[in-house]
């Protein structure tokens, strides 16, 4: 093996999509995005609506053509290929099952179009129906199925032609909470069993973190950060990423010294410690934003220079835990989250003075 990385499943190179005549008057849906998605990876495009994630998916599927740039599938250029000549399949947001066909007919459609021999079609249909546990409903019309069942058929239909890459456009968004949890596990299992590269589009950060090998966070047609779920959550590079995923405290502070990917910082609120440092960052001494997750904070009994302190302004209870809002002397508000471990655990009430400790190595400097 060479030291070169293996060919990417999908290689997107400086790709832009502009709706309208040009950059100035049109809408820039994708802005010179570059991204490599590895073979056999569960990759998620995460971002709010309008961030360009669905556009990117549609460019890969071939429903739309990039205004600029190129997309390679296992090293081969996709330019100019219509959707029906691309060995990728899509699971649509609202499933797009053909209402005039049965479940089996829906699933065999792609194979028929590829002129697969009939015997092979029926065995493949059987196989994928088994994969999604829908054998018993093969001859149903699709409008007689529940949402979850339709979802499975849509998956089976897209998997049947054995695509090189499977594209999933917010496929779980129409399901209710419990079903969605089930399907998350199911999707992960399918991806393991088939070994197909999955590209999954969602605006649900929790979904992205649970299922993905890697996540790309997008906003305004740009990719802000690519990484595995831990990196994205614990070491957000940008303020938007930190804000978009989970709850976060953002406090002001100054960099005292730098050491590679780490820096020593001093918070305006008093605390001094090490924080993660993203690649392109501010010089020493400038005021920076520092992110701390609420669950990395805890109450301590005594005051001290290594602690923050303030008064409790608000407490909210959400079943499995409590959120405390604490106002510090700097005027900054900080949120602290505690697990619910039974009665008597937290003796604090609104108005109390509290001292807070920050877990080791849990601060992260943000680029704007």
């Amino acid at each position, binding site marked *: 093996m060479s030291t070169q990385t293996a060919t990417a499943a999908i290689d997107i190179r400086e790709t*832009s999509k*502009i709706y309208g005549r*040009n*950059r*100035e008057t049109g809408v820039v849906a994708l802005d010179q995005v570059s991204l490599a998605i590895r073979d056999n990876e569960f990759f998620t495009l995460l971002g709010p609506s309008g961030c360009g994630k669905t556009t990117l998916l549609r460019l890969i599927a071939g429903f739309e*053509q*990039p*205004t*600029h740039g190129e997309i390679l599938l296992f090293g081969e250029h996709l*330019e*100019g290929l219509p959707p029906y000549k691309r060995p990728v399949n899509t699971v649509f947001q609202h499933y797009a099952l053909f209402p005039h066909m049965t479940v089996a007919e829906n699933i065999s459609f792609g194979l028929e179009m590829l002129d697969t021999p009939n015997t092979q079609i029926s065995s493949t249909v059987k196989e994928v129906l088994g994969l999604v546990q829908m054998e018993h409903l093969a001859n149903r019309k699709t409008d007689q199925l529940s949402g979850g069942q339709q979802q499975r058929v849509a998956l089976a239909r897209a998997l049947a032609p054995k695509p090189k890459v499977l594209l999933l456009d917010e496929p779980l968004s129409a399901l209710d909470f419990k079903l969605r949890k089930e399907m998350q596990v199911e999707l992960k299992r399918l991806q393991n069993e088939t070994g197909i590269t999955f590209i999954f589009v969602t605006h649900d950060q929790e979904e992205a973190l649970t299922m993905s090998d890697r996540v790309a966070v997008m906003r305004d047609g740009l990719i802000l950060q690519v990484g595995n779920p831990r990196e994205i959550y614990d070491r957000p590079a940008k303020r938007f990423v930190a804000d978009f995923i989970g709850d976060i405290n953002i406090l002001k502070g100054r960099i005292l010294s730098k050491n590679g990917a780490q820096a020593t910082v001093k918070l305006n609120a008093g605390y001094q410690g090490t924080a993660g440092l993203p690649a392109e960052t501010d010089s020493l001494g400038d005021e920076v934003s520092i992110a701390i997750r609420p669950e990395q904070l805890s109450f301590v009994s005594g005051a001290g220079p290594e602690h923050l302190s303030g008064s409790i302004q608000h407490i909210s209870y959400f079943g499995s835990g409590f959120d405390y809002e604490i106002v510090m002397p700097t005027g900054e508000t900080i949120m602290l989250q505690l697990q619910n471990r039974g009665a008597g655990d937290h003796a604090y009430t609104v108005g109390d003075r509290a001292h807070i400790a920050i877990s080791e190595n849990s601060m992260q400097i943000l680029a704007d």
Partner: protein
Amino acid sequence: MSDQPSANIQPSSSVVAEEKRLRNTRLGLLAPGILTIFCIGIMPLSIVLVYSFLEPGDFGGVSWVLSFDAYVQLLFEEDIFDETLSFTTDYLQIFLRSVGLGLFTTIACLLVGFPTAYFIATQPPARRNAWLFLITIPFWTNLLIRTYAMLLILRDQGIINLALIEIGLIDRAIPILYTDFAVCLGLVYAYLPFMVLPIYASLEKLDFRLVEASYDLYATRFKVLKRIIIPLAKPGIAAGCILVLIPSLGAFITPALLGGGKSLMIGNLIELQFGQARNWPFGSAIALVLMVLVMLSLMTYLRYGARKGAPAHG
């Protein structure tokens, strides 16, 4: 960041090819339909315009001499002997009658059509379809036959007169047929579904939680109707009015059957010029007057009726 961000961004060749293919497909599929309507619907209209400025031929048709006689004839009568012109209201009367009957028909249809549409829209869905079906059937059945049925009823020997005589209210048949009233009745009968259906369409979409909200805010039934329901149904009402007014203005069958020679409308006048009178330029001129009336109604509609709620401008 590059200094000229747009300079290096050229649409890739596949985009251009795709657009070209799309354009050709579009053109290929649209052209036959458009062409048919253009040749048989739109181009002839301009020929009508040309014809209205020519002189009538001896046996129908035209002779190619520029003339404004057709338009002069609308308002003035030429004396056969000394060729002087004198003002006449003969044709003006017919135009006014057409406009009057058209407006009257529209109002009558609205007064009956709105409550009907509202009633249907507030029925449970299953029954709603049955009602709608009852309204739709006359919409698509032969207007000539329906007008003939009306004629059977309105005749001197028709059901209405016979019934009135039977109960002793009158002792001789009162002439209903061949009056403006009969024509108006026939027009309402003919175009009532045109009023009900669009109003129904806008009422069906109405969110009745708004009605609940206004009751909650102390509105009475009538106030709810006036302040909430009617304003929200305005697009449907406007569409219904224009759908009744336009065919009423150009009505031909109804006045021909129920108006006879006494209650002529523009449509009959046009037919007369192309039939017995053999004056094609005059017929063309009248047809253009009718077109102008219709355009005026349409423009009024587009200006005040087409948009929701607030009076639109421009």
